[in-house]
Every structure is written in C-alpha cells, then in structure tokens.
C-alpha cells in the first residue's frame, strides 16, 4: 500500500459514518429483538425501526407512513417498477424510462418488456439531460408509468424532476424517481416535487449497504415482490434489518445536517477544483455530463486515447480509488450505456473516469489525485498507439 489512500468512489459506496455506526451497534448483540415480537426486546426494536422511518421520511419531506424499507436500492427500484405496473396493468401496458438509467431500473423495464409491456426509452442529449418535451411526446393514452433517475451515477447530471412530475400528474401517469445518487446530497422535498415513488439507498449516504428505502406517496399501490409475514405494510416481508434500518435513519439525519450546514457547497467547490485542474492540465480531457446541473460530489471525465481500466489500476497503485464506465471494468464488451446514450464514440467512452468525492475529501486529496492522474496519463499515453505525440 502507498502512504496515501484517497477514496474517490463515493458514488459506488460510502463508508458508514462513525456516528451512524455508533447508532447501529446496540442493535446487533444487545437490542437484538425481532420488531414483530410482542415482548420488551421486540417492542424496543419496533420503536427503533419507527424512529428510523421518521428520520428517513424527514430527509425527503415525506410522512413516515410513506416510507418502506427494503434490502437495498436495487430492490426498491424493482419493487416500484414491477409492483406498480402489476397493479395498473389493466389500465394500460405502455411504460416509459430513459436511456441512462441504472441497471436496476433498466433491467426491471427489460423484465416488463418480456412480460408484454411496451417500453419507450427516452434519449438524452450530450450532457445526459432528459428532455421533458420528449417525455410529453412519448406519452400515450395507455401509458401507466414513467421512471427517471434524479441524478445520474456515472456523469452526475441532475434531471428536471419537478417538470416531469407535473407532466405525469397532469396526464395521470405514475412517476417513479430513482433517487439513489441524489438523496442526501441534493436538497429536495417529495411533496414539492410531486413524485409518486422515490428510491433511496443507505450506503450512498454514509449508511450501511443492504438497506434501501422506497417512498410511496399516500394512495400509491404496489404489489410486493417479496411476500410473507407482512412487514412494511405488507409490501416487503421478512424480519426487518433492524440495525441496518437504524443506520439508515442515522445516515438520513446526518444528511439533513450536511444539506443545511454548507458541507455540500464545500464538496462542490472541491469538485470544481478537480474539474478545472484535470481539464486544464491534461490534454484532450473533458468533463462528461452537465457542467452545472450536476451532483455536487461527482466529477467525471473522458481522457482521450486511453482506456479506463488501465488508468484505474494505475490510480489504484497510487492509493486512489476511482471508477470508469469502460467496458473492461465490467467484463462486457460495450462501454457504459450512459456514455453511449450521450453520443460519445466507443473509443472515447472507453476512456471515461469518475471521481466521486466524499465528506472527508480534502483539498490535498484533490491535488494528490490530479497530480497522479497527470503522471499516469502521460505514462500510459507513451504506451498508446492512439496518442500522437505532439510538439
């Protein structure tokens, strides 16, 4: 290991905050009751789950009764998409999503397609923005659901959620938002936005992995995908992951604080520093996604004539954790569908790099990353047959 370790992959997952872990700890070996048990152990666990639900609801401006806990963000996405269409399939069989969704949404729509639903996929522009005009055009009398992410996990672009919500409301279409990357990082209120369903995941906001949340506006009905004991209002059966849920609650509380105290602005300042430095000091390096309408912690680039995995592993050797939409990082042959949907050529998309900052990222970290990236890009370009040495 190198001396310095700089984790800049907070879009992939975050460390559980120490305070969050403190809150969780009693619920493993001391307050281990099953919230469904009648006795004191069970009642204390139930109380803890209820309190966590209040906290998560508070983060997004929902009522606690509107939040369902699941076993992660992907599960919440699947529940929202499969569960709501299953309830409404008699009203119509047309559903809409976008070209840049996370696989959890994309593949849930793939499943709908196999079930006989008609799926329209909205394109995006070169900044990964979805156009609400396109949405309006796509809507048909038999459209029952639109699902769009709040903010993209690869390039950070924030979508016009409120505008889309208004259109869906006017047309009587259910609107699901994958808020996994946005929740806890971008201030919003589900009431003001007017969305029907919104997915969250604790591990993207300094909570534990394996716990998700689904906001379901009062009155929105979904068929469960996990049937059984009737937990979570019958919408997600199974003994509650008490410690995980408590951690999610504590993480939501932390997020509320961070959204209020200027932490997010500082994160955005550091992000901009990194963007400026990389795009100015490295030739043929450009920012991907929207220049301003983007996640405060996410800086994503394409680096010309280079391939993502090789950069990642060289960065890794320097103690830096980052990510790429390169095909080689996923084992598939195609680079990220997001970058391709934005119109990037395959060879350009292969050179993508994502740095996602976290609450403990410092300016020194930014400098360290930039310096190392500059060196690594130079080294790898010396190996690249695509790089024309200049000057």
């Amino acid at each position, binding site marked *: 290991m190198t001396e310095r370790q700089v984790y800049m992959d907070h879009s992939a997952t975050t460390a559980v905050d120490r305070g969050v872990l403190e809150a969780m700890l009693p619920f493993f070996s001391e307050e281990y009751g099953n919230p469904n048990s009648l006795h004191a152990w069970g009642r204390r666990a139930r109380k803890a789950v209820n309190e966590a639900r209040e906290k998560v609801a508070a983060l997004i401006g929902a009522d606690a009764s509107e939040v369902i806990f699941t076993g992660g963000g992907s599960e919440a996405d699947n529940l929202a998409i499969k569960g709501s269409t299953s309830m409404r399939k008699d009203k119509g069989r047309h559903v809409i999503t976008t070209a840049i969704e996370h696989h959890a949404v994309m593949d849930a729509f793939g499943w709908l397609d196999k079930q006989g639903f008609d799926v329209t996929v909205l394109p995006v522009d070169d900044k990964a923005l979805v156009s609400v005009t396109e949405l309006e055009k796509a809507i048909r009398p038999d459209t029952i659901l639109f699902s769009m992410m709040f903010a993209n996990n690869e390039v950070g672009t924030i979508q016009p959620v409120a505008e889309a919500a208004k259109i869906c409301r006017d047309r009587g279409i259910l609107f699901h938002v994958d808020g996994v990357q946005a929740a806890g990082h971008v201030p919003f209120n589900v009431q003001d936005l007017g969305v029907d369903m919104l997915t969250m995941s604790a591990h993207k906001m300094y909570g534990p992995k394996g716990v998700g949340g689904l906001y379901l506006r009062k009155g929105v009905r979904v068929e469960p995908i996990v049937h059984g004991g009737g937990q979570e209002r019958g919408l997600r059966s199974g003994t509650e992951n008490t410690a995980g849920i408590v951690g999610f609650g504590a993480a939501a509380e932390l997020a509320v604080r961070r959204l209020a105290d200027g932490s997010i602005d500082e994160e955005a300042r550091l992000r901009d520093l990194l963007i400026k430095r990389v795009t100015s000091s490295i030739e043929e390096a450009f920012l991907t996604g929207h220049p301003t309408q983007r996640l405060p912690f996410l800086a994503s680039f394409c680096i010309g*004539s*280079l*391939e*993502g*995995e*090789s950069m990642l*592993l*060289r960065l890794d*050797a320097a103690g830096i954790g980052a990510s790429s939409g*390169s*095909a*080689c990082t996923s*084992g598939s*042959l195609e*680079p990220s569908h997001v970058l391709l949907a934005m119109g990037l050529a*395959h*060879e350009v998309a*292969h050179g993508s790099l994502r740095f996602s900052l976290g609450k403990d990222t410092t300016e020194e970290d930014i400098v360290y990353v930039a310096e190392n990236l500059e060196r690594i890009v130079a080294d790898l370009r*010396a*190996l*690249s*047959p*695509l*790089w024309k040495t200049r000057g």
Partner: protein
Amino acid sequence: MYTEKVMELFMNPKNAGRMEDPDGVGEVGNPRCGDIMKIYIKVKDDRIADISFETFGCASAIASSSMVTEMVKGLTLDEALAISNKDVVNALGGLPPQKVHCSLLAEEGIQAAIEDYRAKQKAKSGAAAPKS
C-alpha cells in the same frame, strides 16, 4: 482479480513504446472494443532481434503485450509464430475469463508484425529481382 505477474508487467511493462525504423509492424484490435495492440519488430537472421509495443487497452492487454514481446525476443520467426495465446496466459499465471481475449491480441499482434515483415521482404526481393 489479476495475478501478481500481470500487475507487475502492467505497472512496469517491458519493450514499451514506438520503434524507429522497424522491419515489421502489426496492428490488431479495434478502438471500439477498447483495445489496440501495435507490435514493432526488427529482424536479423530470421530471428526477432528487437521488439516493442504500443497498446491502448486494459491492464491485461498491456501485460499481455509486455509478456509476448519478452517471450518472442530472440526466437526465429517460425518459433515466434508458434507462440499461442494460451502460452501467454500461462506465462502470466492466468487471466480472468473475460480478459482472455487480450491474450489473443498478443498472439495476433506478433503474427501481424511477422506477416508485415515477410510481405515487405517479398516486396523488396520482388523489387530487387529485376535489378539483379
């Protein structure tokens, strides 16, 4: 995911970089797929006297390039042609299944460079023949 050998060659590749005045050059792969390998050779007495590579691609592509250039250096052209991607994978101590195609590029790169060399020789001798 990668063996130590792969990581070692990826971090410190041997025979890397462009070659001036090569006797043969082979380029294989496709930027669409995320890897291109370019092999340069100098040939003396039907043997690979010098070799270098340029590779756009992932760690296994770079390591495979480095490995294959080391393996064929000093071999006769026919011996070099007999090196298979399996030999490269073995020498690397293995590659993850989805990365084995990178070793194929290494095999093909050498073949392409030797073909290029032989084609040029033929052209030369063909061009020279009338002169003599």
